[in-house]
């Protein structure tokens, strides 16, 4: 008992700490708007980061369309589709978590974020399974790469793009899951209130962005072969 009451005393104090405005702001709304704007600007940066690799994808796919189609046939279509569904669902739970934060429903917030984290881990596991399959299949670029089709080099380039794009995406997923873990931790201690939940909102924005990246990677990599047997 005493331990839990101490914990709640802690969380109350922290909540108060948090609640007090940072000195450069005049009011809560201004602080929240600033935080949100900062996140959107950061996402613009992230968009350009992936944009660089996608430029490479466009240029090379334009140059070697047949090899890219052939490479795409080796994608695990079901795994990719399942992962898309998982990420969209995770996004739903994150959006619902923000909703809970807005209403101050602490338990719901914690639960929904935990489900989203779990789905994120599922996504990463399936991704890992796909990588493993590609490894066994000798489709990882490098000395072990094997290709029976007519155009091995450009097919290898497709796999280079595949691993770089999904690899950087997976890295963002790992970061996203870790951020959610932090948010869950603080949410459980009652740090977020209807007035102050900028971190929840910003973490959600980041998570949705990572989701959007995947929404584009999925058709770019998985859906260009026309036959997925």
């Amino acid at each position, binding site marked *: 008992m005493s331990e839990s009451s101490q914990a709640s005393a802690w969380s109350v104090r922290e909540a108060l700490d948090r609640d007090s405005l*940072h*000195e*450069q*702001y*005049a009011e809560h709304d*201004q602080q929240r*708007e*600033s935080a949100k*704007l*900062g996140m959107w*600007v*950061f996402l*613009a*940066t*992230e*968009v*350009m*980061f992936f*944009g*660089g*690799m996608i*430029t*490479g994808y466009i*240029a*090379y796919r334009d*140059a*070697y369309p047949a090899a890219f189609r052939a490479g795409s046939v080796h994608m695990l279509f079901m795994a990719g589709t399942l992962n898309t569904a998982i990420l969209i669902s995770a996004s739903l739970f994150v959006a619902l978590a923000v909703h809970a934060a807005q209403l101050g429903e602490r338990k719901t917030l914690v639960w929904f974020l935990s489900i989203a984290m779990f789905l994120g881990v599922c996504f990463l596991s399936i991704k890992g399974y796909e990588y493993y399959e590609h490894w066994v299949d000798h489709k990882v*670029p*490098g000395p072990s790469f094997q290709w029976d089709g007519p155009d091995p*080099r*450009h097919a*290898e*380039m497709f796999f*280079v*793009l595949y691993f*770089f794009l999904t690899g950087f995406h997976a890295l963002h997923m790992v970061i996203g899951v870790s951020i959610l873990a932090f948010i869950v931790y603080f949410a459980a201690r009652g740090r977020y209130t209807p007035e102050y939940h900028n971190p929840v909102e910003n973490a959600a924005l980041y998570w949705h962005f990572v989701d959007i990246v995947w929404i584009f990677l999925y058709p770019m990599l998985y859906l260009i072969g026309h036959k997925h047997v």
Partner: protein
Amino acid sequence: MATTGQLEVTGYDDFINAKSGIKSWLFTTDHKRIALLYLTSITFMFFIGALFALIIRLELLTPKGDLVQADTYNKMFTMHGLVMIFFFLIPSIPAVLGNFLIPLMIGAKDVAFPKLNLLSWYIYDVGAIMFIYTILTGGLDTGWTFYTPLSTSFVTSSVVVGALAIFVVGFSSILTSLNFIVTVHRLRAPGMTWGRLPLFVWASYATAVIIVLGTPLIAISMALVALERIFGIGFFDPLLGGDPLLFQHLFWFYSHPAVYVMILPGMGVISEIMTCFSRKRVFGYKSMALAILGIAVFGFLVWAHHMFVAGISVYSALVFSFLSYLVAVPSAIKVFNWTATMYRGSVYLLTPMLYALAFIGLFTIGGMTGLFLASLGIDVHVTDTYFVVAHFHYIMVGGMVTAFMGGMHFWWPKISGRMYPEGWGKVAAAIMFIGFNLTFFPQFILGYVGMNRRYWEYASQFQVLNVLSTAGASVLGIGYLLPLGYFAWSLRYGARAGNNPWNAAGLEWTVPSPPATHNFDVTPVVTSEAYDYDQLPKDIVVPREASVVGE
């Protein structure tokens, strides 16, 4: 504005003396202290870069490669470029003057995210340490452009750590810029409308936009180079049908706008100085602000003019040449408007003004030679020669470094609370101007005549011009060392500046020098436009020690 004696200044805690001890600096979130932390870091890096420049110029005294080995020389120009661009020029005005001034100029107590601001300084330092590690473990010899496949498969130096250092330091400038963008949007004082912002804030804002949208491209290019080196396979591998030009596209998508990162803040500084020492509002405020935004946006449309001979299609070369001329128009507007700002003004030729005038002259020459390079027929001949080297040094050193020095002199009284010695300031400005032109003007000639850049040995008929250039560089070096000396001197012996030694417009001059930690006791309310010099005293009386004692 009572400039009172030392003992009487007790009404407030200025930001420097508010707290003491090394911890109070390392864990500060005060934007002014962070600006000074940045000043220390970039000054350190500047002298490393200058050391490389010194070795380059000494090697080029003679046509034969007799001072250092070819490999060493290649490392010198590579690391000179990387250190100066990523560790000095890009953070120079934004991270030092921008950090110090933006909150003061818009009437805010701090930037929007003070902890992030401190974090970006630490990230900068991590990047710098990684780069110094690269230097100490043998250096880099890829050229600052990291062109593939030379960087990915051929050179043997430590490309991975070097490229990752650039990657890391890129994050530092992204975070600083993100901070500025939000600060300018959300923390302006009541009445500080966009139409009343000082042009320095406009310029810093535009710079921040460029950094936020461009830097991720250099980050990803560096990451891809590093990964390709680690795995031996990647995006740019010609064996897999990878295109070396793809790297150049991605690289220049950032690195051309980066040139505007290295000049726009300078333009902002010059606008502040020109108005103050002409005692007059700026000529054409609106078009000046629009020109800044125009440069920022159009700057993103011209990158492939670095690739006219690289094997891009003729059609796209024509498009990029055309667009390059469009971006020259706003720069022209700025030069004409600065000149017109002096018209019917009341001109004071004090040190910052000397730097501002030097800036206009040097930037004009740099910009005009840019027109040569944008012209396809000329570019084919002079690209990758000393003509290009001279051109971008006129913009980056003649422009940005001159503006940085001008800004440092202009705001030194605000930063330190003390006046620098005016006489020495003028001498240093003159030395710098002469040294600079002597160093870089001969290089225009060298380029057209046929001297390649990045050449360790050169044909003997180029020696006279190279000797001139090296001589100029020595003069220039003295010009840079002098201010270091007298700024330090002034910290102890300089006359007290008072709030507003220049009688300049702008909120930063309404607070004591150095400002208090919280900048403003009461949030100011702005009621007039920027540069309302008709509301200010007509004269500038530069504080001198004697007058302080006398009052």
